[in-house]
């Protein structure tokens, strides 16, 4: 257990495993976000701080504890597989960046 006060102000935020620029760029690619080199460098410095904070989790014994995905551990409700909404294509497409003849336009993906 990490002393609460120490976590707040003493700044024990040393990362166990160093994050690299490659990690940042790989995550950015997976997340489909364009970032330039300067942005990636800045992100690296700040993510290193954040991961230092997160590394504190590694010190705790978690054997025998079940993961908790949800506040009340309830089963998500299921509903009947039935149509509940009417056709609202026109309304929804009114906020689209580019549409034509009821279709969303995107760059060609198959040559």
């Amino acid at each position, binding site marked *: *257990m*990490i*002393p*609460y*006060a*120490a*976590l*707040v*102000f003493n700044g024990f*935020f040393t990362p166990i495993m160093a994050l690299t620029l490659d*990690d940042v760029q*790989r*995550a*950015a690619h*997976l*997340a*489909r*976000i*364009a*970032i330039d080199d300067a*942005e990636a460098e*800045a*992100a690296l410095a*700040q*993510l290193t*701080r*954040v991961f*230092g*904070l*997160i*590394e*504190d*989790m*590694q010190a*705790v014994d*978690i054997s025998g*504890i*079940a*993961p*908790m*995905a*949800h*506040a*009340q551990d*309830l089963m*998500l*409700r299921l*509903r009947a597989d039935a149509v509940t909404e009417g056709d*609202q294509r026109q*309304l*929804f497409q*009114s*906020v*689209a*960046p*580019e549409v034509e003849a009821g279709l*969303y336009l*995107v*760059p060609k*993906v198959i040559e």
Partner: protein
Amino acid sequence: MSNATLKELSARLAAKACSSVELAQDFINKINVLNKDLGCYVTVDAERTVAQAQAADARRAAGDAGVLTGVPLAHKDIFCAKGWRTTCGSKMLANFVAPYDAHVVERCDAAGMVTLGKTNMDEFAMGSSNETSFFGPVRNPWDRERVPGGSSGGSAAAVAARLAPAATGTDTGGSIRQPAALTGICGLKPTYGLVSRYGMIAFASSLDQAGPMARTAEDLGLLLNVMAGHDTRDSTSLERPAEDYNRDLAKPLKGLRVGLPKEFFAAGMTADVQKTIEAAIAEYRKLGATVVDISLPNMGLSVPVYYVLAPAEASSNLSRFDGVRYGHRAAEYTDLLDMYKRSRGEGFGAEVKRRILIGTYVLSHGYYDAYYIRAQKLRRLIAQDFAAAFKQCDVIMGPTSPTTAFKLGEKSSDPVQMYLSDIYTIAVNLAGLPGMSIPCGFDGSGLPVGLQIIGNYFDEARMLNVAHQYQLGTDWHQRAPQGAA
């Protein structure tokens, strides 16, 4: 009129001392004067507001008015409201006009409430100072060089500055309670599942919860009565009988057991905050409460656990913003992948990108067990700490925030410092418990301090009782920043 509470406005409308249109116009006039300095609202639409007020007046004339019919409020710009621009504080949605209503908006409309506008917020609710908004910061009405807290900073500042009698907010890690504390108002995050998330733009779905922000505990209850309710369109919405959250307001507090977690009172908060919180606890003793020392041993893990789980959920939720069906699309791109990357690179701000990157990383191959699953296990330990504590006490009290309002720019260069601003509030979201903040005094610079009250699951009525009894004997909640009242 703008200094009146929801309860008082409701009474005036019922007595026909004023009309809803007059009331709405009064607030609109005040917003027009003060909003450009404070930045509380990102969208106002006087025509729409007045039309809604006229409909409320007609409803009253027809004898069909409810408690809050004709009473105005502001909605955090995270809630979709049909025909209103709904931005979530982001360039990504800067031109998005919602094609449907959030459940919360639907319920407020059905009650006859009048929407004054959409309030500013940290981009996609990611922030604790309202500085990450694409539309610029919100300034704290108590000191305009300081932040109002976040992410519901616009809602909090609007209520504090009397530019709205109440507002909706959302709280994923403290986003209702921390800004309420920093602006000297009241805010309640209900038990997870009480208020539907339908139409509320998702940040971290297992933690997000909407709640009321207002100037008194009683007003929180009035608004929560409208906001809460089962909704089949949110798979985590709970099916419970309707209740009046204000039913227990008058109960005396004799015998109330107040738990004080020793971890809250270890070094961490400023001396001024500590002194003010201790004075509030002393007041509760006078009201007949007994104080119980409790411990939440895994409390220190809540910030690290949160900064794994919330970004992980966010990275998944925000993948929907791809520039295809709605939202920002880059002007130039070479192919589909490039279109996605540029649209998202341009549409999201730095903090949102940072959280998506964290989430993507902790969910990526090879790290999932070490980060995500581990965090979920620790989340259970944190929830178990609360369950054990509530065997010894009825409510838990402590500070809402370790400091009072900080200066604009003071923490924006270091994300970790900013994250620690929510150190007392985050564990409550992880456990799914209800939590609230009420004003309980001021620091040496005249900035408000918030007392946090945490209840057991579904104990909102008791929490409101506990807050209301305190407000009967104190006047902190009636203090207004200069120029507001």
